[in-house]
């Protein structure tokens, strides 16, 4: 099952076999199957970096408005806005990105003057592969190159789309043989290919589909892109309730005579409480199996970071802070 990972960097240079520390990168793409908590992890990573004195830009690519709510901020737009001390948040808008690109690189100040191009954009972008992707990746690489921020965190597309995004510069390079775009993609490729600069974080949960999708992603990232998988974050890991001996005690408590006595002592029916614990134990066990499968399938140099299941009622900044704290612990702070 584990995909053979090709040798990436045979020279014992500064990159080495161990990936650089997550917070030392300049551009981090956070991806994952829908529903695993990708945006939360991106927000938490930004929070953690900012807490360590970094100036962070966090960009939501498929804007659904979740990022802003994780900082209790107003909806994000293409123009970045500070949402927390040291954290600027933006959302990707490929048309605005094109406008900015034209202004900066072609010195065409107002896109209105080339009206047909603006109107044609949506059509071309719908049909011509890679146009949206290159404008997305281009904007992010531009922010890295200009060094406006220490770290750019990307709440990237879901696993299905991320490969298309990361390979867009290469795809454009293959399709477009000459012209300005061609020269533009070269420096983007430099940024994306440097393992000390750019990394990918795959978020998953310890469940069957997310794990197999993550392993598939890891294989494709190694084969098809120049970007390095810097870490796999496993979200919603359930706590281990008992050790082996304690589990025996638990099993004996479920004996009808014992649980009847227990009900009497506790002043009410303990059945639901015991059943709830049994559910937690089974869930934990099923998930531990998926976690083992994940570890076995990944290159051993890729760190696997575990985040606990949060039994909370909150969703906003409070969650971001809790996840950031757990992430910090996993990263050794």
């Amino acid at each position, binding site marked *: 099952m584990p995909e053979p990972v090709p040798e990436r960097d045979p020279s014992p240079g500064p990159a080495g076999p161990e990936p650089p520390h997550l917070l030392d990168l300049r551009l981090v793409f956070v991806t994952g199957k*829908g529903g695993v908590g990708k945006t939360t992890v991106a927000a938490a990573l930004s929070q953690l970096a900012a807490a360590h004195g970094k100036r962070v830009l966090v960009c939501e690519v498929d804007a659904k408005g979740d990022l802003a709510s994780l900082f209790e901020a107003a909806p994000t737009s293409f123009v970045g806005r500070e949402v927390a001390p040291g954290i600027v948040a933006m959302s990707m808008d490929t048309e605005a990105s094109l406008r900015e690109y034209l202004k900066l690189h072609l010195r065409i100040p107002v896109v209105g003057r080339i009206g047909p191009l603006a109107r*044609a954009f949506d059509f071309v972008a719908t*049909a011509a592969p890679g146009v949206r992707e290159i404008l997305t990746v281009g904007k992010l690489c531009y922010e890295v190159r200009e060094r406006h921020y220490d770290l750019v965190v990307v709440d990237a597309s879901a696993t299905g789309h991320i490969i*298309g995004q990361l390979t867009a510069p290469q795809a454009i390079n293959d399709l477009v043989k000459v012209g300005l*775009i061609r020269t533009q993609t070269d420096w983007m490729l430099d940024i994306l290919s440097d393992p000390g600069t750019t990394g990918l974080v795959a978020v998953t949960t310890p469940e069957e589909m997310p794990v197999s999708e993550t392993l598939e992603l890891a294989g494709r990232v190694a084969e098809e892109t120049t970007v390095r998988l810097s870490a796999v974050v496993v979200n919603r890991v359930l*706590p281990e309730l008992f050790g082996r001996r304690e589990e025996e*005690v638990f099993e*004996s408590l479920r004996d009808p005579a014992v649980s009847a006595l227990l009900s009497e002592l506790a002043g009410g029916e303990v059945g639901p409480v015991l059943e*709830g614990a049994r559910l937690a134990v089974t869930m934990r066990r099923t998930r531990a199996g998926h976690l083992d499968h994940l570890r076995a399938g990944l290159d051993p140099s890729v760190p696997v970071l575990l985040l606990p299941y949060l039994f909370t009622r909150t969703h906003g900044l409070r969650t971001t802070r809790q996840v950031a704290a757990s992430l910090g612990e996993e990263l050794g702070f």
Partner: protein
Amino acid sequence: MPGAEWAGNAATPGKGSLDGLLAAKEIVIACGPGGVGKTTTAAAAAAMAACHQGGRVLVLTVDPARRLADALGLSGIGNRERRIDDSVFRDAGVSPRGELWAAMLDTKESWDQLVRRHAPDAATRDHILANPLYRNISGRFVQSHDYIAMERLFEIHSEGAYDLIVVDTPPSRNALDFLDAPQRLADFFSSRLLRWLIAPYRSRLVNMASKPFYQVADRILGTQFLADIAEFFILFQSMYDGFVERAGAVARLLSDRRTTFLVVSTLEATPMREAEFFARELVARDLHLGAIVLNKVLPAYFRDPSAARVAQALRDRATDIAGALRDRAAAPAGDPSADPAQTARVLREIADSYLNFSVVARREEEERTEMSAQPEVLAAVPFFDEDIFDMAGLLRLGARI
């Protein structure tokens, strides 16, 4: 399995049932946010219909978990519809009244078929299939899933081979993309802008360089790329009539009264927001919202106030209770009374675990109440503590819907 006893309660009484929906409709489209068990729900609904209602039932799926696909004998079947062997049902202890068929969506293959069907002649067909842009669109970019899923649905339905088709929609950036995809594609090919864009390539008489737009486009994209784009569009325009006609037919099929939509979600905050949006949007478009299926709902006993009091008591008085257990228990196998300190630890753990899950369960209950105003059918599916990876599992899930 013991978990099947949970009162995860099924459809809201008096509001119709999913079973009825499956009996009444010809096309059931399962949609909703990612990661909520859409694929499994679609498969379970189709399996139930095949079992109990009979007839020929097809589930058109996008990306089932490998273990499930293996168990159903679906691995590597590609675009072809295949019948699920009766032995799969027998192994699960049932004998279905009808037939269950399954097909997976192979985007690239479907696009190629589409081009073969609509291309006016062999030369155009070969040119399109060889065009680098076409190969990129059909193979690499996921948005094209959206169109092709609806296209396949239409194709299969118009063959008239199935009594019920259950469709699992592809993951997309926006859960609604697949609804708009056929029309978007038709609009695209019929646009004046597109004709204008490729005009210079149709007529050698126009001097491209004289137009500022082409100067800019050429500087950005390079001549070859522009030529590839133009060739692609010119070729595709030859299939224009076919596409527009198809898009109209697909739209009619989606709004047909024989078609219904299931919105699948979990009760977590983010999926719920998306599911609510989706439900509103279906109604706004005059499409039939048949049911909302809430997946992975925690069992009702986590919301039992007296159980919560017991958990609180176990937690607060763990040491006393463990001591009393040792004194009074007729030491069963495993002898829990051996070490009361250990028993107390276990009691605290299970009490905490119960109280933790009950926080989540009560939040879910609140979300569910807010949701219940919306559809005709609201089905809650309990949290299965083991993965669903075979027919028995699907039927277990199906029975709860």
